[in-house]
């Protein structure tokens, strides 16, 4: 199966799961402060941050309380980078994970939970109380973008493309400003975000790059897997792995060999609600 087909298969599987199983937002604010795929601590996130107005974190669906870490260390002392967290096992092979909880507030006495049961308090931050929320598909060994399973956000804002760069060891061209570039091999870098409500730094849901009408990169943040010990959004495309973001947080869309003549680049960025931004560039290659 080709990478693209596998990616579509995973997306289809995730969407199929969505059709069968829906989740409630885990807090009273149905809005993601950061989305699945957002750069976080040097890596892309496999969950999302959700604010809580009343500070409470609730179960997204009924299930079994499978794991409660009411502290920041596992047995034996191994540290938890999710802080205090809870995992709830649901039917349909899904597990929801609630991290960044305030130690001492977790509902350790529960064994089964109903939808909207209180699990604990979200940890306070400069941006208010925030919890980390992730959805894991046990049957497919894959993290699933929670937005697929949650009620839609109220989001009418288009994503923002802040920059598209052509970069190599010698020079960097910012498309839009540069209309003429030298021939050679370049890495395509994209600085894009999906602002929504008060959350400015979210990853978009999909990114697509066309060069001279041919698709050179396409990625949808539907799910993430780590079959060989390396996490990827697309199991057949190493570009969607840990190096997907560079040190500045730009998405690395791959390399291009530009020969003398004209080149047409088309970049499309969309969020999960379907709001999209598309930019086209015509370049003279010398």
């Amino acid at each position, binding site marked *: 199966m080709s990478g693209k087909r596998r990616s579509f298969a995973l997306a289809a599987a995730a969407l199929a799961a969505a059709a069968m199983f829906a989740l409630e937002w885990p807090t009273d604010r149905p809005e993601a402060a950061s989305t699945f795929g957002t750069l*976080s*601590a*040097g*890596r892309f*996130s*496999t*969950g999302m941050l959700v604010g809580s107005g009343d500070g409470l974190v609730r179960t997204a669906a009924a299930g*079994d*309380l*499978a*794991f*409660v*870490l*009411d502290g*920041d260390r*596992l*047995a*034996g*002392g*191994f*540290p*938890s*980078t*999710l*802080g205090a*967290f809870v*995992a709830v*096992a649901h039917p349909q092979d899904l*597990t929801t*994970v609630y*991290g960044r909880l305030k130690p001492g507030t977790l509902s*350790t006495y529960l*064994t089964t939970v109903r939808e909207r049961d209180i699990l604990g308090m979200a940890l306070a931050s400069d941006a208010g109380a925030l919890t*980390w929320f*992730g959805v*894991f598909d*046990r049957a497919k*060994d*894959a*993290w699933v973008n929670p937005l697929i399973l949650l009620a839609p956000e109220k989001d009418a804002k288009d994503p923002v493309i802040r920059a598209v760069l052509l970069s190599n060891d010698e020079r960097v061209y910012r498309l839009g400003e540069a209309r003429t570039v030298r021939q050679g091999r370049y890495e395509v870098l994209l600085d894009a975000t999906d602002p929504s409500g008060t959350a400015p730094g979210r990853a978009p849901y999909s990114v697509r790059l066309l060069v001279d009408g041919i698709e050179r990169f396409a990625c949808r943040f539907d799910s993430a*897997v*780590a*079959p060989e*010990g*390396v*996490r990827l959004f697309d199991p057949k495309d190493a570009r969607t792995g*840990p190096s997907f973001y560079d040190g500045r947080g730009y998405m690395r869309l791959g390399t291009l060999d530009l020969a003398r003549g004209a080149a047409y680049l088309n970049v499309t960025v969309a969020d999960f609600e379907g709001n999209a931004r598309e930019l086209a560039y015509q370049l003279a290659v010398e």
Partner: protein
Amino acid sequence: MTEEARKPLAAVALALAVLSYYFIAAGRLEPEFVLAPAWTANLDRAGSADAFATPATGAAASEAVALGFELGRFHGQVGPDGRILHVGLRDFRSAVSDGYVIPYDFDSDGLTVLDSVGAPSYEIKAPGAPWFSSGRLFLAGPEMGSVSEYSGSGELLWSLDFGAPISAFAADEGLAVAGLVDGTIVAIERDGSVALRTAPGGSRIEIILGLAVDSERGRIAAICGIDRQRFVLLTRTGGAYRVASHSYLSTDFRRPVSIRLSADGRHAWYEGATGIVVRQLEDGSESTLDLPSRDFTISEDPSRGLTYLLSRDAASATLVVVSPPDRVLGRYALPGADAFARAYGDLVFTGSSERLAAFAAGED
């Protein structure tokens, strides 16, 4: 002989019988186990390491050996003679080994590793939370989704992403083992290659709650599953790991569970419903020590055949000296929930309530 004449004779016979029993039948008393104080150091005198410049009395100093500690507001290293080599105030969290201290916060992008006298030794430019085990340095990656190992000079040795969040982790000199929320166990060799990826199963909800490893004997022990919960022992035979034994438990834990394997390979210690279970690996027989069992450590003195078991609850700790499997030789209360105890030669090195101390094990 009249009845009256028999009474004195009976009294004399009874007295002789009592005396005979006292001298002939009485057994020799077992010598009593004692922990004799060797030295103490109060960390609340701290402010600078200069406060501890004077060596404490006790065993001869050994410049080469440092014992790492993490206690209350402090972390650092102390020599076996009680001389503090380095003490620092913990502004955030810290990871401590005998050679190094790493202060860290979950939001930091990099780590500065301090040596045993508190001087910067090397840096790790990666986000995550550090953890030392058996002299090895691991880094828990963001969102509990990965683990990396670094060398003693800060060089990345390997990194591994997991498909689900880590719910248990253990490591010794030869093997690192991660347990995941989806019930998978992943064993990782020193070179980062995956030696084992398996899901013990056997329960309605699969999850790994506790892990212990003994790479020398090729053993991995796990507390896993919910409805029903299991103890599982995996043993490496012919290059592959197989379930050597298992048993269903009466517990229904849904949180991390402490489990340890003894250095001599004879016992597994784990949290039970009513105390700490000591399981003999040879025949699967079990005994239970009536102690708070949620959070415990063991440290062993193989020369004396003793196990120092530190059992902690919310406010205090109890140091129990055990001759395995279940003969308790002594119990000592240690104030403070962050107390620790560790065997070092013929000493027991303890910390509690911002006070370090060493005791010499002996008999009275």
